[in-house]
Every structure is written in C-alpha cells, then in structure tokens.
C-alpha cells in the first residue's frame, strides 16, 4: 500500500464518521428566484460545497454543515467567513438576478424525525407567498449605501460669517473683559451648537428629498462615528432600480462637491436592508 493510498483510506473513514455530524445542518445564504436543483461547487464558507434546495420556482442556497454556529475569537477568521458568505450571495445574485439574502450564520438544523434538508424545504413551503412578495419588491433593483459627512469646522466658519447673531456675539466678545468674555463664549457655543443642529436638519431634509427621487425605497440608518474632522450626518440604505444608479450618482456628486461635505457611495449590494420584516 503506497503512502498515498493509505492516506486516502484513512480520510475515507474519517469522512464516513463525520458525515453523520455534517448532515445535521444547512447553512442558508439566500433564497433565490429560480427553479433550480443543482450544485454551485465548492464556493462556500471554508470551501464547503454549495447547493440549492428547491420549492416550486424558488430555492434556498445552502451548504451542509454540522449543527454548530460558526464562532471564533479571531476577528480575521470571522471577517473571512463574512466575505465568503457575501461571495456566495453575490454568485447566486449574478446567476439568478433576484435573491433574498440571509444574515451571517443562519443554520437550519435537522430533527429526530426530519432531516435538515427537509426542514429547509418546509420552511420555503411555509414562507413561499411571503418570499414571492419580497422577491417582487426587490426584483430589478440593488441596494446602495449612501453616507454623507460634513466638516464641522468648515460649517462653523461659514455660520460665523452668515449668521448675524453669531457674528455680533463673536465681535462683542473681543470688547469684553476676561470674566465677561468667558460668559459670552459660553453663550456663543450654545448658540453655535443650536445653529449647527438647525443647519444639519436643513441639509438632511434637502439631501433626503434629492436622493429619494432616484430611489425606490430608503432606510435611514444610525449615523456612525467617523474621523474627528468629519461628522456623519446621514446614513442611508437605498433600494435603486439598476438603471437609475447613475442618476443617483450624479446627484451625490453634486453634494460631494459642496464645500465642507463628503459623500460615500457604496454598492451595488444584494438588498440586505429590504428583505427583513415588514
């Protein structure tokens, strides 16, 4: 027996025992608008073979795995998993045009009486109408991320020159003695804060209206902390018809060219933000 044959024989035994565990779960990547029963090859997380589980004219895109969630303390490992998850969703999206993505680490398990594969089938059957409704909602569209930032320093400077109230206070401070100047500065700060918020509201409404025109649906997300010199004032997920993203891009370009503003435009993403809940 050559070393290679020995090695293969050992692997086979290992495969046979592990197969039982492996059969227990189905990691679900997405539900696709396709009547397909096929393998997509070893494109899954950690090289798992990805296949479809059909029900009528839709299918779930899954890989077989043990009934254990993917968990790791190593951030790089998790990031790689998330990237692989996305690659599979992308592959299905490209192939079948419309997909409903699931979030990372959704695993359907088998039960004593029912295999995991059967549980996935039953789940598709039970949710069929709802999935068809959501497929219709996102068909022909893609998700884009739009984040708008401003530079607080630049905005504050322009407020100082345009707001008569602020300018007056700013000038008065210079003439006041130390103690009083301190009080005035407090007042100025409060006024500035208030004016900045008002400005932010104005811009938000203006941008929202301009962006909304080119989108089919919008989700306003929480803004996030950015660099100290930039402040995120808007964080949107936009559902956009595929042939309209250039128009949206043009509008965003105009905002991006405004002094003191910056826009981040990402995508196209599968419609993650538009397939959950209502």
């Amino acid at each position, binding site marked *: 027996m050559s070393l290679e044959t020995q090695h293969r024989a050992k692997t086979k035994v290992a495969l046979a025992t592990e197969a039982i565990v492996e059969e227990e779960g189905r990691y679900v990547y997405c539900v696709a608008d396709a009547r397909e029963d096929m393998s997509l090859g070893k494109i899954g997380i950690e*090289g798992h*073979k990805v296949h479809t589980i059909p029900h009528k004219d839709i299918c779930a895109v899954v890989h077989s795995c043990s009934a254990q*969630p993917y968990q790791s303390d190593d951030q790089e490992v998790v990031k790689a998993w998330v990237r692989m998850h996305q690659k599979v969703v992308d592959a299905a999206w490209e192939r079948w045009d419309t997909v409903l*993505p*699931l979030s990372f*680490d959704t*695993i*359907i398990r088998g039960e004593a009486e029912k295999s995991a594969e059967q549980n996935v089938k039953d789940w598709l059957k039970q949710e069929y109408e709802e999935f068809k409704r959501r497929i219709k909602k996102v068909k022909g569209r893609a998700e884009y991320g739009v984040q708008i930032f401003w530079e607080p320093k630049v905005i504050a400077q322009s407020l100082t020159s345009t707001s008569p109230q602020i300018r007056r206070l700013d000038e008065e401070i210079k003439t006041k003695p130390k103690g009083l100047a301190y009080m005035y500065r407090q007042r100025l700060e409060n006024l500035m804060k208030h004016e900045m918020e008002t400005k932010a509201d104005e811009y938000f409404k203006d941008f929202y209206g301009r962006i909304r025109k080119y989108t089919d649906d919008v989700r306003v997300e929480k803004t996030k902390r950015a660099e100290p010199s930039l402040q995120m004032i808007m964080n949107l997920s936009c559902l956009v018809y595929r042939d309209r993203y250039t128009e949206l891009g043009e509008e965003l370009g105009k905002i991006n060219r405004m002094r003191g503003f910056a826009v981040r435009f*990402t995508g196209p993403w599968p419609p993650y933000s538009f397939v*959950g809940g209502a």
Partner: protein
Amino acid sequence: MEPTRNSHATLVDLLDRVLDKGIVIQADIIISLAGVPLIGVNLRAALAGMETMLEYGLMKEWDARARAWENEQRQKKVEPICAAQIAR
C-alpha cells in the same frame, strides 16, 4: 460619482449588512445564535481600531497582512466533506 464595492474599503458596510440584516428566520429549527451578536460587537471593536489606523495611513500594512492571511488560509484548506456525495 460612481459607487464603490472595493472589498477592503467597504468592509464596514459589508459587515453592517451581513451581520445585522437580511431575512430573519423566527422558528425553532434555527440553531441558537446567541453568540452571533457578540461576534458583531467584537468585530466592531476591532474595526474601530482599524479606522484609527486608516487615519494614520497605516492601512497599507493592514491590507498586506489581511491578504497574506487569506492566502495562507487558502493554501492550507482541506477538501471539505460533502455529505450528499457520500449518501448517494
């Protein structure tokens, strides 16, 4: 203005979507995912660090390391077990 999906530049955008969104299955056939939000939180902490690095322009180094790591994973990957094949 053209949208970007450069995989390193948009990692945070990807994580926001893949970890927090998508179809949610509310049934007991789902493996308990109590640990998942924790993964999310930990990751975000690491990413906050990443953003700071970006500011100081050290992203190139991180990028190189990430790619090297990915490459390494690909090299040592064992052929996965395919249960369906064995059952057939």
